[in-house]
Protein backbone atom coordinates (compact mmCIF):
# COMPACT_ATOMS: atom_id res chain seq x y z
CA UNK A 1 0.00 0.00 0.00
CA UNK A 2 1.33 3.42 -0.85
CA UNK A 3 0.22 6.95 -0.19
CA UNK A 4 1.88 10.05 -1.59
CA UNK A 5 2.86 13.02 0.54
CA UNK A 6 3.08 16.10 -1.70
CA UNK A 7 5.66 18.60 -0.56
CA UNK A 8 5.02 22.23 -1.59
CA UNK A 9 7.88 24.24 -3.08
CA UNK A 10 8.45 26.23 0.09
CA UNK A 11 9.23 23.08 2.08
CA UNK A 12 11.54 21.49 -0.51
CA UNK A 13 14.70 23.08 0.77
CA UNK A 14 14.30 20.82 3.78
CA UNK A 15 13.87 17.73 1.62
CA UNK A 16 16.88 18.21 -0.70
CA UNK A 17 14.43 19.21 -3.40
CA UNK A 18 12.28 16.09 -3.18
CA UNK A 19 8.75 17.08 -4.27
CA UNK A 20 7.01 14.08 -2.74
CA UNK A 21 7.43 11.10 -0.53
CA UNK A 22 5.87 7.68 -0.95
CA UNK A 23 4.76 6.21 2.33
CA UNK A 24 3.26 2.98 3.59
CA UNK A 25 1.71 4.72 6.62
CA UNK A 26 -1.76 3.72 7.79
CA UNK A 27 -2.76 7.04 9.35
CA UNK A 28 -2.06 10.72 8.73
CA UNK A 29 -0.09 10.88 11.98
CA UNK A 30 2.13 8.00 10.90
CA UNK A 31 2.65 9.57 7.48
CA UNK A 32 3.70 12.91 8.98
CA UNK A 33 5.98 11.16 11.44
CA UNK A 34 7.56 9.24 8.59
CA UNK A 35 8.01 12.50 6.67
CA UNK A 36 9.88 14.22 9.50
CA UNK A 37 11.88 11.11 10.29
CA UNK A 38 13.00 10.98 6.65
CA UNK A 39 13.65 14.75 6.52
CA UNK A 40 14.49 15.88 10.06
CA UNK A 41 14.98 19.49 8.95
CA UNK A 42 11.24 19.62 8.25
CA UNK A 43 10.36 18.55 11.76
CA UNK A 44 10.07 21.89 13.56
CA UNK A 45 8.16 23.32 10.60
CA UNK A 46 5.46 20.70 10.73
CA UNK A 47 4.91 20.36 14.47
CA UNK A 48 5.08 22.87 17.31
CA UNK A 49 6.59 22.25 20.75
CA UNK A 50 3.39 20.56 21.92
CA UNK A 51 3.58 18.10 19.07
CA UNK A 52 0.54 19.61 17.36
CA UNK A 53 0.55 20.42 13.68
CA UNK A 54 1.64 24.05 13.42
CA UNK A 55 -1.07 26.66 13.37
CA UNK A 56 -0.45 28.03 9.89
CA UNK A 57 -0.19 24.74 8.03
CA UNK A 58 -3.20 22.98 6.57
CA UNK A 59 -3.08 19.25 5.89
CA UNK A 60 -5.37 17.87 3.18
CA UNK A 61 -6.17 14.21 2.66
CA UNK A 62 -7.14 14.10 -1.00
CA UNK A 63 -9.57 17.04 -1.16
CA UNK A 64 -10.46 17.35 2.48
CA UNK A 65 -8.90 19.27 5.35
CA UNK A 66 -8.09 16.58 7.94
CA UNK A 67 -9.82 18.66 10.62
CA UNK A 68 -13.09 17.72 8.90
CA UNK A 69 -12.12 14.06 9.03
CA UNK A 70 -10.54 12.44 12.05
CA UNK A 71 -7.56 14.75 12.26
CA UNK A 72 -4.24 12.99 12.46
CA UNK A 73 -5.86 9.67 13.24
CA UNK A 74 -7.59 9.68 9.84
CA UNK A 75 -6.99 6.35 8.17
CA UNK A 76 -5.15 6.16 4.85
CA UNK A 77 -5.78 3.82 1.96
CA UNK A 78 -3.80 2.91 -1.13
CA UNK A 79 -3.50 5.79 -3.58
CA UNK A 80 -4.36 8.54 -1.09
CA UNK A 81 -2.62 11.89 -1.41
CA UNK A 82 -1.58 14.08 1.49
CA UNK A 83 -0.96 17.75 0.81
CA UNK A 84 0.66 20.29 3.12
CA UNK A 85 -0.32 23.89 2.38
CA UNK A 86 0.61 27.12 4.14
CA UNK A 87 -2.58 28.76 5.38
CA UNK A 88 -3.66 31.62 3.15
CA UNK A 89 -7.23 32.76 2.58
CA UNK A 90 -9.49 35.71 2.18
CA UNK A 91 -11.22 37.57 -0.63
Amino acid at each position, binding site marked *: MAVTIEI*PTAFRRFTDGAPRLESGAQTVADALNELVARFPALSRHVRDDDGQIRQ*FINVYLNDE*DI*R*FLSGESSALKDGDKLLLV*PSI*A*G*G
Partner: protein
Amino acid sequence: MKELYFLRCRECGKKYSNMPQSFCEECFSPLEVSYDYEELGRVARREALAHRAFNMWRYSELLPLPEGFAPSAAVGGTPLVKSKKLGAEWGAKNLYFKNDAVCFPTLSFKDRVVATALAAARRFGFKTVGCSSTGNLANAVAAQGAQQGFDTTVFIPADLEPAKILNTAVYGARIVRIEGNYDHVNRLCTQIADRFRWGLVNVNLRPYYAEGSKTHGYEIAEQLGWELPDNVVVPMAGGSLIGKIAKAFCELAHLGWVEPKQVKFFGAQATGCSPIADAVKRGLTRVEPQKPNTIARSLAIGNPADGHYARRLITETGGWAESLSDPEIIDAIKLLAQNEGIFAETAGGVTAGVAGKLIEQGRIRADETTVVCITGNGLKTTDAIAADFPATEAIAPKLEAFEALVARQLEEPVREQSNA
Protein backbone atom coordinates in the same frame (compact mmCIF):
# COMPACT_ATOMS: atom_id res chain seq x y z
CA MET B 1 15.24 57.52 -1.35
CA LYS B 2 15.40 54.61 1.04
CA GLU B 3 12.37 52.38 1.04
CA LEU B 4 10.61 52.59 4.38
CA TYR B 5 8.72 49.29 4.26
CA PHE B 6 9.70 45.64 4.19
CA LEU B 7 8.23 42.23 4.96
CA ARG B 8 8.28 40.71 8.42
CA CYS B 9 7.04 37.40 9.81
CA ARG B 10 4.15 37.92 12.23
CA GLU B 11 5.34 35.06 14.39
CA CYS B 12 9.13 34.83 14.40
CA GLY B 13 9.83 38.43 13.34
CA LYS B 14 12.25 37.48 10.54
CA LYS B 15 12.60 40.33 8.04
CA TYR B 16 12.56 40.02 4.28
CA SER B 17 13.13 42.52 1.54
CA ASN B 18 10.07 43.22 -0.58
CA MET B 19 8.99 40.28 -2.74
CA PRO B 20 5.80 38.50 -3.81
CA GLN B 21 5.62 36.04 -0.94
CA SER B 22 3.06 35.72 1.81
CA PHE B 23 4.61 33.29 4.27
CA CYS B 24 7.83 32.99 6.22
CA GLU B 25 10.36 30.47 4.96
CA GLU B 26 11.42 29.75 8.51
CA CYS B 27 8.12 29.00 10.20
CA PHE B 28 5.52 29.27 7.41
CA SER B 29 3.58 31.85 9.36
CA PRO B 30 2.13 34.83 7.51
CA LEU B 31 4.29 37.78 6.48
CA GLU B 32 3.07 41.32 6.82
CA VAL B 33 4.40 44.66 5.66
CA SER B 34 6.21 46.54 8.37
CA TYR B 35 7.66 50.04 8.32
CA ASP B 36 10.57 52.03 9.61
CA TYR B 37 8.20 53.93 11.87
CA GLU B 38 10.88 56.20 13.23
CA GLU B 39 11.76 57.50 9.79
CA LEU B 40 8.10 57.53 8.83
CA GLY B 41 7.43 59.81 11.76
CA ARG B 42 9.92 62.26 10.29
CA VAL B 43 8.63 62.22 6.69
CA ALA B 44 4.87 61.80 7.14
CA ARG B 45 3.08 64.88 8.38
CA ARG B 46 -0.62 65.09 9.18
CA GLU B 47 -0.69 68.69 7.93
CA ALA B 48 0.29 67.54 4.45
CA LEU B 49 -3.07 65.80 4.09
CA ALA B 50 -5.07 69.01 4.15
CA HIS B 51 -4.51 69.74 0.47
CA ARG B 52 -4.96 66.22 -0.79
CA ALA B 53 -8.17 64.83 -2.27
CA PHE B 54 -10.24 62.74 0.10
CA ASN B 55 -9.50 59.20 -1.06
CA MET B 56 -7.18 56.42 0.09
CA TRP B 57 -4.10 57.88 -1.60
CA ARG B 58 -3.98 60.74 0.88
CA TYR B 59 -2.32 58.23 3.23
CA SER B 60 0.33 57.17 0.70
CA GLU B 61 3.31 57.51 3.06
CA LEU B 62 1.74 54.85 5.26
CA LEU B 63 1.19 52.38 2.42
CA PRO B 64 3.65 50.01 0.69
CA LEU B 65 3.93 51.97 -2.53
CA PRO B 66 7.08 51.97 -4.64
CA GLU B 67 8.94 55.23 -5.18
CA GLY B 68 7.46 57.25 -7.98
CA PHE B 69 4.12 55.48 -7.75
CA ALA B 70 1.34 57.56 -9.25
CA PRO B 71 -2.18 56.25 -8.67
CA SER B 72 -4.20 55.92 -11.85
CA ALA B 73 -7.56 56.61 -10.21
CA ALA B 74 -9.18 57.65 -6.96
CA VAL B 75 -10.16 54.81 -4.65
CA GLY B 76 -11.96 54.93 -1.30
CA GLY B 77 -12.77 58.14 0.51
CA THR B 78 -16.21 56.92 1.54
CA PRO B 79 -18.77 58.59 3.80
CA LEU B 80 -18.89 58.14 7.56
CA VAL B 81 -22.61 58.41 8.23
CA LYS B 82 -23.86 59.39 11.67
CA SER B 83 -26.90 57.27 12.47
CA LYS B 84 -30.09 59.07 13.33
CA LYS B 85 -32.80 56.43 13.41
CA LEU B 86 -31.09 53.13 14.20
CA GLY B 87 -28.92 54.76 16.80
CA ALA B 88 -32.00 56.25 18.42
CA GLU B 89 -33.84 52.92 18.25
CA TRP B 90 -30.94 51.07 19.82
CA GLY B 91 -30.27 53.79 22.35
CA ALA B 92 -26.81 54.38 20.87
CA LYS B 93 -26.22 58.12 20.71
CA ASN B 94 -22.94 58.05 18.80
CA LEU B 95 -23.40 55.35 16.21
CA TYR B 96 -21.76 55.68 12.81
CA PHE B 97 -21.71 53.65 9.64
CA LYS B 98 -18.51 53.66 7.58
CA ASN B 99 -20.09 53.23 4.19
CA ASP B 100 -17.82 51.30 1.82
CA ALA B 101 -21.01 50.18 0.03
CA VAL B 102 -20.24 53.21 -2.13
CA CYS B 103 -16.49 52.66 -2.38
CA PHE B 104 -15.18 53.13 -5.89
CA PRO B 105 -14.64 51.82 -8.45
CA THR B 106 -16.55 48.61 -7.60
CA LEU B 107 -18.68 49.34 -4.53
CA SER B 108 -16.86 47.31 -1.89
CA PHE B 109 -13.92 47.81 0.41
CA LYS B 110 -11.98 45.37 -1.76
CA ASP B 111 -11.14 48.29 -4.01
CA ARG B 112 -8.73 49.43 -1.30
CA VAL B 113 -6.80 46.18 -1.01
CA VAL B 114 -6.63 45.70 -4.77
CA ALA B 115 -5.20 49.18 -5.18
CA THR B 116 -2.19 48.42 -3.01
CA ALA B 117 -1.83 44.89 -4.39
CA LEU B 118 -1.66 46.10 -8.00
CA ALA B 119 0.92 48.74 -7.07
CA ALA B 120 3.03 45.83 -5.80
CA ALA B 121 2.21 43.71 -8.87
CA ARG B 122 3.53 46.47 -11.13
CA ARG B 123 6.63 46.83 -9.00
CA PHE B 124 7.35 43.08 -9.20
CA GLY B 125 6.82 43.02 -12.96
CA PHE B 126 3.74 40.80 -13.10
CA LYS B 127 1.84 40.90 -16.40
CA THR B 128 -1.02 38.70 -15.20
CA VAL B 129 -2.87 39.34 -11.97
CA GLY B 130 -5.73 37.49 -10.39
CA CYS B 131 -7.32 36.30 -7.19
CA SER B 132 -9.41 33.67 -5.48
CA SER B 133 -12.65 35.36 -4.66
CA THR B 134 -16.08 35.16 -3.14
CA GLY B 135 -17.08 37.92 -5.53
CA ASN B 136 -16.17 41.40 -4.37
CA LEU B 137 -12.46 40.87 -4.79
CA ALA B 138 -12.95 39.53 -8.30
CA ASN B 139 -14.98 42.63 -9.20
CA ALA B 140 -12.23 44.91 -7.91
CA VAL B 141 -9.34 43.03 -9.52
CA ALA B 142 -11.16 42.87 -12.86
CA ALA B 143 -11.96 46.58 -12.88
CA GLN B 144 -8.64 47.92 -11.69
CA GLY B 145 -6.76 45.31 -13.72
CA ALA B 146 -8.55 46.47 -16.87
CA GLN B 147 -7.89 50.11 -16.05
CA GLN B 148 -4.19 49.51 -15.51
CA GLY B 149 -3.60 47.18 -18.44
CA PHE B 150 -3.04 43.88 -16.63
CA ASP B 151 -4.15 40.53 -17.99
CA THR B 152 -6.60 39.29 -15.33
CA THR B 153 -7.81 35.83 -14.26
CA VAL B 154 -10.12 35.31 -11.32
CA PHE B 155 -11.05 32.06 -9.58
CA ILE B 156 -14.48 31.75 -8.01
CA PRO B 157 -16.77 29.09 -6.53
CA ALA B 158 -18.99 27.94 -9.42
CA ASP B 159 -22.24 28.78 -7.64
CA LEU B 160 -21.44 32.38 -6.80
CA GLU B 161 -24.27 34.93 -7.10
CA PRO B 162 -24.89 35.77 -10.79
CA ALA B 163 -24.59 39.51 -10.19
CA LYS B 164 -21.09 39.09 -8.83
CA ILE B 165 -20.00 36.93 -11.75
CA LEU B 166 -21.45 39.36 -14.30
CA ASN B 167 -19.91 42.28 -12.49
CA THR B 168 -16.51 40.70 -13.01
CA ALA B 169 -16.97 39.35 -16.54
CA VAL B 170 -17.95 42.74 -17.93
CA TYR B 171 -14.41 44.06 -17.43
CA GLY B 172 -13.01 41.35 -19.68
CA ALA B 173 -11.40 39.23 -16.97
CA ARG B 174 -10.96 35.52 -17.55
CA ILE B 175 -13.19 33.73 -15.05
CA VAL B 176 -12.42 30.24 -13.83
CA ARG B 177 -15.33 28.65 -11.97
CA ILE B 178 -14.35 25.99 -9.47
CA GLU B 179 -16.66 23.21 -8.36
CA GLY B 180 -16.31 23.66 -4.65
CA ASN B 181 -16.54 26.19 -1.90
CA TYR B 182 -14.27 29.14 -1.41
CA ASP B 183 -11.76 27.16 0.63
CA HIS B 184 -11.30 24.78 -2.32
CA VAL B 185 -10.76 27.76 -4.63
CA ASN B 186 -8.22 29.18 -2.26
CA ARG B 187 -6.25 26.00 -1.96
CA LEU B 188 -6.05 25.72 -5.77
CA CYS B 189 -4.85 29.32 -6.01
CA THR B 190 -2.10 28.62 -3.52
CA GLN B 191 -0.93 25.85 -5.83
CA ILE B 192 -1.27 28.07 -8.91
CA ALA B 193 0.77 30.86 -7.34
CA ASP B 194 3.37 28.21 -6.56
CA ARG B 195 3.52 27.11 -10.20
CA PHE B 196 2.78 30.15 -12.41
CA ARG B 197 4.39 33.58 -12.37
CA TRP B 198 1.14 35.42 -11.70
CA GLY B 199 0.38 38.11 -9.14
CA LEU B 200 -2.52 36.63 -7.16
CA VAL B 201 -3.45 39.56 -5.00
CA ASN B 202 -4.65 37.61 -1.97
CA VAL B 203 -2.11 34.82 -2.26
CA ASN B 204 1.46 35.75 -3.17
CA LEU B 205 0.79 39.51 -2.97
CA ARG B 206 -1.23 39.14 0.23
CA PRO B 207 0.96 41.28 2.53
CA TYR B 208 0.69 44.26 0.12
CA TYR B 209 -3.00 43.61 -0.48
CA ALA B 210 -3.78 43.55 3.22
CA GLU B 211 -2.28 46.99 3.81
CA GLY B 212 -4.98 48.65 1.69
CA SER B 213 -7.52 47.83 4.40
CA LYS B 214 -5.78 50.21 6.78
CA THR B 215 -7.20 53.12 4.78
CA HIS B 216 -10.71 52.17 5.93
CA GLY B 217 -9.41 52.78 9.46
CA TYR B 218 -7.41 55.93 8.67
CA GLU B 219 -10.51 57.50 7.11
CA ILE B 220 -12.64 56.64 10.15
CA ALA B 221 -10.16 58.37 12.45
CA GLU B 222 -9.87 61.41 10.21
CA GLN B 223 -13.61 61.69 9.72
CA LEU B 224 -14.14 61.61 13.49
CA GLY B 225 -11.88 64.64 13.65
CA TRP B 226 -8.62 62.75 14.16
CA GLU B 227 -10.10 60.79 17.03
CA LEU B 228 -10.40 57.07 17.54
CA PRO B 229 -13.83 55.55 18.22
CA ASP B 230 -14.51 53.50 21.35
CA ASN B 231 -15.85 50.50 19.47
CA VAL B 232 -15.61 49.14 15.94
CA VAL B 233 -17.84 46.38 14.55
CA VAL B 234 -16.23 44.59 11.61
CA PRO B 235 -17.39 41.69 9.42
CA MET B 236 -15.01 38.75 9.36
CA ALA B 237 -14.37 36.49 6.40
CA GLY B 238 -10.65 35.67 6.27
CA GLY B 239 -10.23 37.82 9.38
CA SER B 240 -7.82 40.31 7.86
CA LEU B 241 -9.83 43.56 7.80
CA ILE B 242 -10.41 43.78 11.55
CA GLY B 243 -6.68 43.43 12.20
CA LYS B 244 -5.73 46.04 9.65
CA ILE B 245 -8.15 48.59 11.08
CA ALA B 246 -6.48 47.98 14.44
CA LYS B 247 -3.06 48.36 12.82
CA ALA B 248 -4.17 51.65 11.24
CA PHE B 249 -5.31 53.02 14.61
CA CYS B 250 -2.04 51.94 16.26
CA GLU B 251 0.01 53.61 13.54
CA LEU B 252 -1.90 56.88 13.84
CA ALA B 253 -1.40 56.87 17.61
CA HIS B 254 2.28 56.06 17.20
CA LEU B 255 2.69 58.94 14.76
CA GLY B 256 0.91 61.25 17.18
CA TRP B 257 -1.88 61.94 14.69
CA VAL B 258 -4.52 60.79 17.22
CA GLU B 259 -4.64 60.43 20.99
CA PRO B 260 -3.95 56.78 21.90
CA LYS B 261 -7.04 54.89 22.98
CA GLN B 262 -7.84 51.26 23.73
CA VAL B 263 -10.43 50.67 21.02
CA LYS B 264 -12.64 47.60 21.48
CA PHE B 265 -12.96 45.38 18.42
CA PHE B 266 -16.11 43.39 17.71
CA GLY B 267 -16.38 40.75 15.01
CA ALA B 268 -19.46 39.91 12.99
CA GLN B 269 -20.12 36.64 11.16
CA ALA B 270 -23.00 34.64 9.79
CA THR B 271 -24.12 31.79 12.04
CA GLY B 272 -23.76 29.45 9.06
CA CYS B 273 -20.03 30.23 8.91
CA SER B 274 -18.76 31.52 12.22
CA PRO B 275 -15.45 29.88 13.05
CA ILE B 276 -13.94 33.03 14.54
CA ALA B 277 -17.04 34.17 16.42
CA ASP B 278 -17.45 30.68 17.84
CA ALA B 279 -13.86 30.61 19.02
CA VAL B 280 -14.34 33.96 20.74
CA LYS B 281 -17.59 32.94 22.41
CA ARG B 282 -16.31 29.53 23.50
CA GLY B 283 -12.95 30.87 24.69
CA LEU B 284 -10.98 28.61 22.35
CA THR B 285 -7.31 29.27 21.70
CA ARG B 286 -7.44 27.81 18.19
CA VAL B 287 -10.06 28.64 15.58
CA GLU B 288 -11.73 25.45 14.33
CA PRO B 289 -12.67 25.43 10.64
CA GLN B 290 -16.30 25.02 9.58
CA LYS B 291 -18.13 24.12 6.39
CA PRO B 292 -19.86 27.33 5.28
CA ASN B 293 -23.63 27.32 4.85
CA THR B 294 -25.00 30.85 4.66
CA ILE B 295 -26.43 33.38 2.21
CA ALA B 296 -23.61 35.72 3.28
CA ARG B 297 -21.31 34.33 0.60
CA SER B 298 -18.75 37.08 1.00
CA LEU B 299 -18.17 35.88 4.57
CA ALA B 300 -18.29 32.17 3.69
CA ILE B 301 -14.71 31.29 4.52
CA GLY B 302 -14.63 28.21 6.71
CA ASN B 303 -10.88 28.28 7.22
CA PRO B 304 -9.93 31.91 7.82
CA ALA B 305 -6.19 32.47 7.48
CA ASP B 306 -6.21 35.47 9.81
CA GLY B 307 -8.75 33.90 12.16
CA HIS B 308 -6.15 33.39 14.85
CA TYR B 309 -5.17 37.06 14.84
CA ALA B 310 -8.77 38.27 14.68
CA ARG B 311 -9.77 36.11 17.66
CA ARG B 312 -6.82 37.33 19.66
CA LEU B 313 -7.43 40.99 18.81
CA ILE B 314 -11.07 40.76 19.86
CA THR B 315 -10.35 39.08 23.18
CA GLU B 316 -7.34 41.24 24.01
CA THR B 317 -9.16 44.51 23.40
CA GLY B 318 -12.19 43.57 25.49
CA GLY B 319 -14.42 43.11 22.46
CA TRP B 320 -16.73 40.26 21.52
CA ALA B 321 -18.15 38.54 18.47
CA GLU B 322 -21.65 37.63 17.42
CA SER B 323 -23.34 36.00 14.49
CA LEU B 324 -26.65 36.27 12.66
CA SER B 325 -28.82 33.58 11.10
CA ASP B 326 -29.79 33.96 7.45
CA PRO B 327 -33.28 35.33 8.21
CA GLU B 328 -31.76 37.80 10.67
CA ILE B 329 -29.31 38.93 7.97
CA ILE B 330 -32.15 39.74 5.58
CA ASP B 331 -34.00 41.65 8.29
CA ALA B 332 -30.87 43.63 9.06
CA ILE B 333 -30.34 44.58 5.41
CA LYS B 334 -33.88 45.94 5.32
CA LEU B 335 -33.51 47.66 8.67
CA LEU B 336 -30.38 49.47 7.53
CA ALA B 337 -31.87 50.47 4.18
CA GLN B 338 -35.20 51.61 5.61
CA ASN B 339 -33.76 53.52 8.55
CA GLU B 340 -30.51 54.90 7.18
CA GLY B 341 -30.90 54.77 3.41
CA ILE B 342 -27.87 52.50 3.13
CA PHE B 343 -28.32 49.39 0.98
CA ALA B 344 -25.71 46.90 2.05
CA GLU B 345 -24.92 43.45 0.75
CA THR B 346 -25.37 40.44 3.02
CA ALA B 347 -22.06 41.10 4.85
CA GLY B 348 -23.29 44.61 5.63
CA GLY B 349 -26.53 43.20 6.98
CA VAL B 350 -24.51 40.84 9.16
CA THR B 351 -22.44 43.69 10.57
CA ALA B 352 -25.33 46.06 11.20
CA GLY B 353 -27.43 43.32 12.78
CA VAL B 354 -24.57 42.14 14.97
CA ALA B 355 -23.99 45.73 16.13
CA GLY B 356 -27.63 45.86 17.20
CA LYS B 357 -27.27 42.56 19.06
CA LEU B 358 -24.12 43.66 20.84
CA ILE B 359 -25.69 46.94 21.92
CA GLU B 360 -28.75 45.08 23.18
CA GLN B 361 -26.53 42.65 25.08
CA GLY B 362 -24.73 45.58 26.68
CA ARG B 363 -21.43 44.39 25.28
CA ILE B 364 -21.22 47.65 23.37
CA ARG B 365 -22.00 50.51 25.69
CA ALA B 366 -24.73 52.61 24.19
CA ASP B 367 -23.21 55.94 25.20
CA GLU B 368 -19.86 55.25 23.50
CA THR B 369 -18.75 56.12 19.96
CA THR B 370 -19.26 53.07 17.80
CA VAL B 371 -18.43 52.65 14.13
CA VAL B 372 -20.09 49.87 12.13
CA CYS B 373 -18.12 48.92 9.00
CA ILE B 374 -20.29 48.36 5.94
CA THR B 375 -18.12 46.67 3.36
CA GLY B 376 -20.17 46.12 0.22
CA ASN B 377 -23.17 47.30 -1.76
CA GLY B 378 -26.57 45.61 -1.72
CA LEU B 379 -26.76 45.63 -5.51
CA LYS B 380 -24.28 42.74 -5.41
CA THR B 381 -26.50 40.37 -3.45
CA THR B 382 -30.04 41.20 -4.54
CA ASP B 383 -30.76 37.45 -4.76
CA ALA B 384 -30.71 37.25 -0.99
CA ILE B 385 -33.59 39.68 -0.51
CA ALA B 386 -35.57 39.22 -3.75
CA ALA B 387 -38.13 36.89 -2.18
CA ASP B 388 -39.11 39.59 0.30
CA PHE B 389 -40.09 42.04 -2.42
CA PRO B 390 -42.51 40.37 -4.83
CA ALA B 391 -43.79 42.51 -7.72
CA THR B 392 -46.72 44.74 -6.77
CA GLU B 393 -49.91 44.81 -8.83
CA ALA B 394 -49.81 46.92 -11.99
CA ILE B 395 -52.64 49.33 -12.75
CA ALA B 396 -54.05 50.80 -15.94
CA PRO B 397 -52.66 54.24 -16.92
CA LYS B 398 -55.85 55.97 -15.71
CA LEU B 399 -56.43 58.36 -12.89
CA GLU B 400 -59.47 56.35 -11.73
CA ALA B 401 -57.36 53.22 -11.50
CA PHE B 402 -54.87 54.99 -9.27
CA GLU B 403 -57.62 56.47 -7.11
CA ALA B 404 -59.03 52.99 -6.63
CA LEU B 405 -55.57 51.71 -5.70
CA VAL B 406 -55.12 54.50 -3.18
CA ALA B 407 -58.50 53.77 -1.65
CA ARG B 408 -57.54 50.09 -1.28
CA GLN B 409 -53.99 50.46 -0.09
CA LEU B 410 -53.34 53.80 1.51
CA GLU B 411 -54.27 52.55 4.98
CA GLU B 412 -51.30 50.13 4.90
CA PRO B 413 -47.85 51.72 5.19
CA VAL B 414 -45.52 50.82 2.29
CA ARG B 415 -43.19 48.73 4.49
CA GLU B 416 -45.91 46.31 5.53
CA GLN B 417 -46.90 45.81 1.90
CA SER B 418 -43.38 44.85 0.93
CA ASN B 419 -43.10 42.35 3.78
CA ALA B 420 -46.20 40.45 2.65
